[in-house]
């Protein structure tokens, strides 16, 4: 098959968010979401694809990310320039509130977008690197299920790491 599809109509897909907002995306964007690529290949992408785990706010961001990556990669620029450009874009893209970051990470996992998943995981890691245990528990919504004695024992083993 030839790859020159200039004249043929661009395929578009409709994605429906958890809160019912419908987004129209081109195929080059849609296929970056591994889950959707599978649906497209299985011809199960009509009339629209419902994404039950992603809100419209997050889905809009995800589409923005995939669009930029699709355009940069197919733009005909040299690989190194494209690389630089993506790096700058990714850096700016990660400059969001940490709750959004957590949701983006979860969405990237659900939609199976490997590059975005790694990007959000790395960004979250650098955010929490120096945080206290209490701050981390709050951010990740986890409860301390250690007893006082147990926690003390765990802390004692690597007391130097708390300094």
């Amino acid at each position, binding site marked *: 098959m030839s790859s020159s599809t200039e004249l043929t109509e661009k395929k578009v897909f409709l994605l429906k968010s958890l809160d019912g907002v419908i987004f129209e995306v081109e195929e080059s964007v849609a296929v970056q979401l591994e889950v959707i690529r599978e649906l497209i290949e299985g011809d199960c992408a009509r009339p629209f694809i419902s994404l039950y785990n992603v809100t419209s706010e997050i889905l809009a961001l995800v589409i923005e990310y995939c669009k930029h990556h699709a355009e940069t990669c197919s733009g005909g620029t040299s690989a190194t320039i494209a690389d630089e450009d993506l790096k700058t874009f990714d850096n700016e893209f990660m400059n969001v509130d940490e709750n959004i970051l957590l949701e983006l990470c979860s969405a990237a996992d659900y939609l199976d977008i490997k590059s975005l998943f790694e990007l959000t995981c790395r960004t979250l890691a650098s955010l929490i690197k120096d945080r206290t245990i209490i701050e981390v528990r709050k951010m990740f919504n986890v409860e301390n299920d250690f007893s006082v004695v147990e*926690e003390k024992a*765990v802390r004692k083993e*690597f007391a130097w790491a708390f300094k």
Partner: protein
Amino acid sequence: MRMMRGLFLPNHIICEILSWLPVKSLLRFKCVCKTWFNIIQDPEFITIHMVRAPCSWVYQSTYNENSCANFTFSTYWQGLVLERNNSTNAYRLRNPATRQILDLPCPPSHQNIIYINIFFIPKTSDLKLLNISCLQEEGDIHTKRYNILSINDLTWKYVDSTSCDPTKFQVRKLHAETKFYLFKLGLVGDSYFDCLDLENDRITRDIKIPRKLFLDWKNVHALNWKDGKLALACIDQKQQLNLWILEDDKKNKWAETKITISLTFLKDYPSMSSQNIIPWTVKENQIWWYHVTDDSQDIFVFDIESREVDFQTSPTTKKKILYIDKPSLTYIKGMHPETQKVKCSEK
């Protein structure tokens, strides 16, 4: 507006996020909750984390500054440093990132040690230490004693090689997965190799290497080839690297034809010659070399396809590299905190 307030991330996502953190943060985050504690202890997680950890060169000078006096660096394996106590000759395994130590029993012989290395045996999840000492017999005849320590049961065993005369052989040592090879390159006659299988502590001695592989055996090096295979290599007068691959060590089967690679880069680096560059290992399509000069040892990579050379260290640092560190959470049963040495560390 947002519907997912108080998002709760599943374990596999937490695992991914944590895998990008430095060791120190992870040791603290063991206290977050039991789930995080278990993730951080999990051997699979420890492996993923180590792969992602940034690596750094450790020089002899930095090691001397940071480590406690009294110990000499021996070797490095996946975040663990093996070091020898200068006064007692006992070994210990130390994880500099977690500051934990495992003391090991003294080897049965600690005179004339010519080699020490760590082998991981996947089948039994054991670590084995191999320490080779040279037993001098009458005159110039030497026997090599292979001392093997299993970390699982902490006992030393040994096997001996056959005697060999160092004026007739040059010895090259090579470590490939769970096997150790000792090449005895004949300066006047035939060459042989010993194969020590550390999985079973079994040795096959004096396997004869076909003499026709090289004309001149003086500058032959043994190196790790792809797929856990071994190779012998020699740079000829035309500045070509000639490689013979050992296809099967049990059957002593060598490749049908040699591989010849033209070392065009030698023209661009006048300080390098066939005498001072040593091929050491092959990863994918790259040959890793040592460039040895009087006061330094540089590592460089030669890409077989593109013929390009890439220095892993600045050739001007003139510092001896001890090892490439990958800070990891690697833990061996029985390890304890390095408490008594606190005053030696930086803070």
